[in-house]
C-alpha cells in the first residue's frame, strides 16, 4: 500500500483535468460529487498508506518515492519529483484529504445554483493537488511547487465572484502578500543549497549539525518569512481577513484548515535546522507568534461580520502554533494544527450554513435566536465554540494547554500573552454564539430595509451541508485523544500517541524542564479557569446585558494597520515604485532605444555618401587610391 503514495496527489489532479474537459457537461451537482469522490478516494489511499506506516517500526517510517528526475542539471543541483512518505507528511495528508472531502461535499450544497458551479470544483481539486504536493514533497522545490500552487488557487478562489470589486481586490491582495513571503522561501532555498548542496529534506536535515550557525539561522528565518506570508502572521497577515470575500467553503478549506497551515508544516519540517540556529531565531518566531495571537484576538472582539470574527480567530490560533514552534514544541504545534483544522473548519462551515440560511446575510447584528430555526447548525457550532474556547474534554483544550505549557517553560511572559489570548478567544467566540444563536431575533428589521423578500424566515441547510458539520463536530469532541498528556488518571496506553508517531521526524523537539512538568496540572486548571471566565464575561455583557459591550472602533479597524499599509504603499511606497518604473522606462529602455537612435543617426549621416553623383564616387575612389599609396609608402617603407 505504501507505494501507492503517488496516488494521493494524482487523484485530485485527475479530477482537475477531468473537470477541466467535461465540467461544463457534468454540471450541477454531478461535477461536485465527482470532485468530492476524487478527494475522498485520495483520503482512502492516505488511510491505507497511514496504516501501512503505522505497522512498521519507528525507524522504518520514512520512505522516498521518486517519480522522475525533474531538474537534471548536474553539478550537484539535481532535483527529482519525489514524495516523502513519513509520519509528518502523512499526518498532514490525512487531515487535508479528510477535511477536504468533507468540505467538497459541503460545497455541493452551498454552491448550488451558482452559474460557475463546475469551475469552483475545478479550482478546489487543483487546490487539493497543490496542497498534497506541498506536503508530500521530498525536497524544497516540490514543496515550493505546491506552495505556489496553493497561492494561485487561493487567488482564484477568493476572487471567484470576481464581478464584485472587493472580491477581485482581495484576491490580488492575497496573492501579492503571499509573494512577499515566497521571496523569503526562495531565499531560504538558496541558502540551503549553498550550505548543503542539495534541496532534499533528508540531506538538509541530515547535515543540519554541520551547517554554520549563521547560515542555519538565515535558512530558518527566511523560511519563517515565507511561513508568515502563507500563515498570516504579523506583518503579512492582512490578506486573510479580506480573503473572506471568497465563498465560505473556500474560507473553511483554505484559510482555516489547510493552506494556512503550510507555514507551520514548513517550520516543523526543517526543525533540525531551526534547532542549530541561533537562539534568537526561536525567540523571534515565538514572539511574533504570540504577538499575532494577542493582536488578532483583540481585533476579533469588535468584528461584526460573522466570517471576519473567524478570520481573525484563525490568525490568532496560527499565532499559537508559531508560539509553539518558536518554543521548540513541534509536536504541540502539529497537535494544535490538527485540532484547529477540525474545529475551525466546523465553525466556518457552520457560519456558512447560517449565511446560507439567512439568504447571504453576514452581519451578526442582524441575526439572533437562530438556534430554534437551525438546530443542527446551532448544536455543531456550539461544539466548535467549546472546542476553541478551550473547555475540556473538547479537542481544543488539550492542544492549547500543551502549547501554554511549553510557552511557560520558555518564558513566563509568553505564557501570560498566551493566557490573555485564551481569555479573549473565549470571550469573542461566546459573543459570536450569543449574537447569532441566542438573544432576540433581529432579522426582521433588516429585511424591512431590503424589501425584496418581504416576510422571510431563516431555514436549515440541506443534508449535504449538515453531514460534514456533524462529522467535524464529532472529531472536535474526541480529537484530543491523539495526544493526551501524562496525567495520572489517563491510561498509559493512550498517552502521547501523536508524540510517539512523530518522534522520528522531530529530533529538535524541546524537552520540558522538570519544574514545568510538575506545574502542568496547575497550569491546566488555570487554563480552564480563564476559559470559563471569558465565557462568563461574554454572557454577562451580551446575554444578560449586565455591562456595556466594549467594542471600540480602533479594534474594529484592526488597530489601523490596514490603513497604515495603504498609506505607506500609497505614499512613499508609490514614490519608490514610480521611481523604479521611471528608471525602467528611461534608463533601461532609454539605453536600448538610444542605441537604435544612434544607429539611425549614424546611418542618416552615412547615407549622404550615396549621392548618386558619379563625380563624388570618382573622388572617393581617388581618395582611396591615395590613401593606399600613403600606406605603402609609410608603412611598408618604399622610401
Amino acid at each position, binding site marked *: 500500500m505504501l507505494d501507492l503514495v503517488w496516488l494521493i496527489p494524482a487523484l485530485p489532479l485527475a479530477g482537475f483535468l477531468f473537470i477541466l474537459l467535461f465540467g461544463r457537461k457534468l454540471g450541477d451537482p454531478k461535477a461536485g460529487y465527482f470532485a468530492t469522490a476524487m478527494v475522498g478516494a485520495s483520503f482512502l489511499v492516505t488511510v491505507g498508506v497511514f496504516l501501512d506506516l503505522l505497522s512498521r517500526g519507528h525507524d522504518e517510517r520514512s520512505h522516498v518515492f521518486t517519480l522522475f528526475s525533474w531538474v537534471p542539471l548536474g553539478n550537484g543541483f539535481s532535483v527529482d519529483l519525489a514524495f516523502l512518505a513519513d509520519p509528518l507528511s502523512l499526518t498532514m495528508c490525512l487531515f487535508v484529504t479528510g477535511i477536504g472531502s468533507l468540505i467538497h461535499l459541503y460545497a455541493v450544497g452551498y454552491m448550488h445554483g451558482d452559474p460557475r458551479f463546475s469551475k469552483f470544483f475545478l479550482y478546489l481539486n487543483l487546490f487539493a493537488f497543490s496542497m498534497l504536493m506541498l506536503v508530500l514533497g521530498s525536497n524544497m522545490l516540490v514543496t515550493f511547487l505546491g506552495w505556489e500552487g496553493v497561492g494561485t488557487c487561493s487567488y482564484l478562489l477568493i476572487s471567484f465572484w470576481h464581478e464584485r470589486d472587493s472580491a477581485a481586490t482581495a484576491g490580488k491582495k492575497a496573492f501579492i502578500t503571499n509573494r512577499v513571503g515566497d521571496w523569503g522561501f526562495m531565499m531560504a532555498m538558496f541558502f540551503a543549497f549553498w550550505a548543503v548542496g542539495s534541496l532534499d529534506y533528508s540531506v538538509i536535515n541530515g547535515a543540519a549539525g554541520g551547517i554554520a550557525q549563521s547560515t542555519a539561522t538565515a535558512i530558518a528565518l527566511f523560511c519563517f518569512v515565507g511561513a508568515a506570508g502563507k500563515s498570516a502572521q504579523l506583518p503579512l497577515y492582512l490578506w486573510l481577513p479580506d480573503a473572506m470575500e471568497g465563498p465560505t467553503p473556500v474560507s473553511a478549506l483554505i484559510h482555516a484548515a489547510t493552506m494556512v497551515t503550510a507555514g507551520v508544516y514548513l517550520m516543523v519540517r526543517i526543525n533540525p535546522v531551526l534547532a542549530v540556529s541561533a537562539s534568537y531565531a526561536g525567540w523571534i518566531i515565538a514572539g511574533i507568534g504570540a504577538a499575532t495571537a494577542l493582536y488578532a484576538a483583540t481585533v476579533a472582539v469588535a468584528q461584526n461580520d460573522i466570517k471576519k470574527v473567524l478570520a481573525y480567530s484563525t490568525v490568532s490560533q496560527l499565532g499559537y502554533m508559531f508560539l509553539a514552534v518558536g518554543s521548540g514544541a513541534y509536536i504541540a504545534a502539529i497537535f494544535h494544527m490538527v485540532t484547529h483544522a477540525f474545529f475551525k473548519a466546523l465553525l466556518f462551515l457552520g457560519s456558512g450554513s447560517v449565511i446560507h440560511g439567512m439568504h447571504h446575510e453576514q452581519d451578526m447584528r442582524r441575526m439572533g435566536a437562530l438556534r430554534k430555526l437551525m438546530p443542527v447548525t446551532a448544536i455543531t457550532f456550539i461544539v466548535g465554540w467549546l472546542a476553541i474556547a478551550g473547555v475540556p474534554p473538547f479537542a481544543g483544550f488539550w492542544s492549547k494547554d500543551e502549547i501554554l505549557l511549553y510557552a511557560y517553560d520558555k518564558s513566563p511572559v509568553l505564557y501570560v500573552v498566551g493566557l490573555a489570548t485564551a481569555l479573549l478567544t473565549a470571550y469573542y467566540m461566546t459573543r459570536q454564539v450569543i449574537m447569532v444563536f441566542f438573544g432576540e431575533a433581529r432579522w426582521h428589521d433588516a429585511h424591512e430595509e431590503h424589501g425584496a423578500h418581504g416576510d422571510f424566515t431563516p431555514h436549515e441547510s440541506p443534508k449535504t451541508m449538515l453531514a460534514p458539520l456533524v462529522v467535524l463536530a464529532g472529531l472536535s469532541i474526541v480529537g484530543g485523544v491523539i495526544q493526551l498528556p501524562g496525567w495520572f488518571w489517563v491510561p498509559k496506553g493512550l498517552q502521547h500517541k501523536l508524540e510517539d508517531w512523530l518522534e522520528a521526524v522531530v529530533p529538535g523537539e524541546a524537552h520540558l524542564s522538570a519544574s514545568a512538568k510538575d506545574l502542568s496540572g496547575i497550569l491546566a486548571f488555570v487554563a480552564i479557569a480563564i476559559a470559563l471566565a471569558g465565557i462568563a464575561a461574554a454572557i454577562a455583557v451580551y446575554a444578560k446585558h449586565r455591562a456595556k459591550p466594549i467594542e471600540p472602533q480602533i479594534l474594529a479597524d484592526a488597530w489601523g494597520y490596514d490603513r497604515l499599509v495603504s498609506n505607506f504603499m500609497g505614499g512613499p511606497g508609490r514614490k519608490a515604485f514610480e521611481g523604479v518604473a521611471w528608471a525602467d522606462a528611461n534608463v533601461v529602455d532609454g539605453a536600448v532605444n538610444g542605441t537604435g537612435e544612434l544607429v539611425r543617426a549614424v546611418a542618416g549621416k552615412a547615407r549622404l555618401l550615396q549621392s548618386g553623383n558619379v563625380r*563624388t564616387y570618382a*573622388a572617393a575612389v*581617388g581618395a582611396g587610391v*591615395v590613401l593606399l*599609396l600613403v600606406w*605603402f*609608402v609609410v608603412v611598408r617603407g*618604399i622610401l
Partner: protein
Amino acid sequence: MELFVFLVAGAMVLGGGVGVVVRSHPVHAALSLILTLFGVAVLFVAQEAHFLAAVQVIVYAGAIVVLFLFVIMLLGVDNTENLRIEPLKIQRPVAAVIGAGLVALLGMAIIASRDAKPPVVIPSEAVRDAALDPHNSNIKALARDVFGQHVLAFELTSVLLVIAVVATVMLARKPKPGEIGPLVGEGGAS
C-alpha cells in the same frame, strides 16, 4: 638626340593632357587628346615598340577619337560646359589634393626604386629566336608572344569585341513604336 625627342614628345603629351582637362569646348578637348596620343606614339617608338606605335596612331587616334568626334557632332556642338561654376563646392579642392598626392606618391615610389634590381625574365624560345631577326624583330617577337603565350586572351578579346558591338547596337538604336527601349522610360509609344 634622345633627350630632344623625349622633351618634345613629353611636351606634347602633357600639353595635350592639360588641354583635355581645361578646354570647355568638347571638340577642342578631342583635338588636345589627339596631340597627347601622338606624343605617346612617339615615345613608343623611342622605347622600340614600333608595332605598338603604329597601332596607337591607327586605333586610338584614328578610330577612337574619330568616334568621339562623331558623337560630339551628332549630338550638337553647342555643348560647351561652363567651367566657371562648380555645383559641388569641395570637388575642385579635393581633386587638386588627390592629383598632387598621386604625383607626389607615385613620384616618390618611382624615384626610390630607381636602382632596384629588376626581376630576371627568361623569354620563351620563340621570342628569343624572333629577337634575332635584324629587320622585324619587334613585331615578330610581339607576335610570337601574343599568339604563343597569350593566345587564349587573344581569342577572348575577339569575343569581347563582338559583344561590345552587339551591345552598343542594342543600346543605341531608337526603339520601334510599341517596343520598350533598353533605358527606363524609353519607348512604349512612338
